[in-house]
């Protein structure tokens, strides 16, 4: 897990400035790591301020900074030399404050935590409680480990073969694709509501006489008209279907009368008692007005 921003700082140092807050400590062993005394401060603690700013921004928080300090020295997270790490951590914090960087509160909380752990490490621990619970570092170690595994997971996720970076969705057009027509669906209720509304608007409800209008007659009018569409005379009797019974015959009869009234058909009888013939009204009869406009029975007073 490399940290590119860090490399820039470390490997490309502008004229080094020794910060007053970082006096050189040499020769005296200040920590013993895995039995080895450590006598040298890491040189890359001395960082020019402008680079430090970039450097510090590269950290994702106090845990990230701590991990950096630990990893930089090839230390094991499970065995943090807490005093030394605390000292280095505090030095970074001081640098940040000296540089008046905006310091996230989390960094100060971590400073306090480190100080507390360090002081607890100094206390003699009763031998009887020698289990892991008693190690003051345990909680910090857990957090560092937990953070580190997600830091690694983030890097793993970043390595995944990703669309638009590593691979690319292939697509081709289909021009002028035919539209698959789906006919709209209508429910009977929708249609009835539509009619009720239009009837309301046109005040049809005001006509008492239409309220009981037999719809079968209207439909039969259409059917009779359609049967006469050829323009030829049709035998009056053939317009009736006896199998429909009396009711059906009556409906047809009323429909024919209504068509006659509307001037849509003619009924012709060549001589008395001869068969009746029906045909659609010929074009010559143009005197027909739109029916109902002026009918005497207009129920205006109804």
């Amino acid at each position, binding site marked *: 897990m490399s940290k590119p921003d860090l490399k820039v700082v470390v490997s490309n140092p502008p004229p080094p400035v020794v910060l007053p807050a970082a006096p050189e400590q040499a020769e005296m062993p200040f920590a013993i790591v895995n039995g080895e005394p450590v006598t040298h401060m890491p040189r890359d603690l001395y960082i020019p301020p402008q680079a430090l700013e970039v450097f510090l921004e590269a950290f994702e928080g106090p845990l990230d900074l701590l991990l950096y300090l630990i990893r930089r020295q090839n230390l094991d997270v499970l065995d943090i030399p807490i005093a030394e790490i605390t000292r280095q951590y505090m030095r970074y914090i001081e640098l940040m404050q000296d540089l008046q960087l905006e310091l996230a509160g989390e960094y100060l909380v971590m400073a306090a935590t480190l100080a507390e752990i360090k002081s607890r490490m100094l206390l003699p621990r009763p031998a009887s409680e020698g289990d892991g619970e008693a190690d003051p570092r345990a909680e910090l170690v857990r957090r560092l480990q937990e953070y580190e595994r997600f830091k690694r997971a983030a890097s793993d996720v970043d390595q995944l073969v990703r669309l638009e970076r590593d691979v690319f969705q*292939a697509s081709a057009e289909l021009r002028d694709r035919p539209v698959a027509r789906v006919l709209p669906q209508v429910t009977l209720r929708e249609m009835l509501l539509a009619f009720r509304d*239009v009837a309301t608007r046109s005040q049809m409800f005001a006509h008492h006489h239409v309220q009981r209008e037999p719809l079968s007659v209207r439909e039969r009018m259409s059917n009779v008209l359609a049967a006469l569409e050829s323009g030829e005379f049709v035998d009056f009797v053939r317009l009736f279907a006896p199998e429909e019974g009396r009711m059906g015959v009556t409906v047809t009869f009323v429909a024919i009368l209504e068509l006659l009234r509307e001037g849509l058909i003619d009924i012709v009888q060549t001589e008395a008692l001869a068969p009746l013939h029906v045909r659609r009204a010929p074009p010559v009869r143009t*005197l027909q007005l739109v*029916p109902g406009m002026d009918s005497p029975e207009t129920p205006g007073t109804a």
Partner: protein
Amino acid sequence: MNEQYIRNVIEAGLLAAGRSLTLEELAALFGETECPGSAAIRAGLAQLEQDYAARALELKETASGVRIQVRRDFATEVSRLWPERPRRYSRALLETLALIAYRQPITRAEIEAVRGVAVNPDITRTLLERNWIRVVGHRELPGRPELLGTTREFLDYFGLRSVAELPPLAELRGLEEIDPQLALPVGATAESAAGEDGEAVSVAEAAALLSDDGADADDDVGGEPQLSSAPGLVASSPSSED
């Protein structure tokens, strides 16, 4: 850089772009140092075209460059990816259809007289195409306007044996009550439920109209035939000839 590589890069670029690329854009895919000449790119395109001979794809050169597209032969299959969302009919269409059902045979002018607005020709054309209405005759007036009526398909679609099974106008005023008797498709419930509030208002309006404005009603209804007055048959014809 061999021919197969050039062909592959061209194909990759065109399919990743999903649009036409110019010859310059195709050349730019190869980077500045290794850019093949336009002859090599043309050769790669020709190679691709040949590869596609047995496939559903083809190269198409247009003003904006070259693109890979799916052949028309596969349009039917591919268009199944986008099933058309069922559209809805307009209120105007439903009203027109309802008027034709209840008042057939009826002319456009008569529909317009009732609805108070012109009938959009698209509406009657749609209804004719759907085979729900038909021209049953002509009224012998100047222009011989078509008389429209409903069809057997109309009855079948709505599950009716006859238009007479439609509720009479009077009953429509209390549509809520007749609702259970009309075995409505399930899909209808949601939207009809949504319409319920507006409906209640309409009924109230209708009641108000009934009591207050009855006298004016006839003028608005215009050409509506007076059905219940069969005797009027005799009377109306002479009067119209005046």
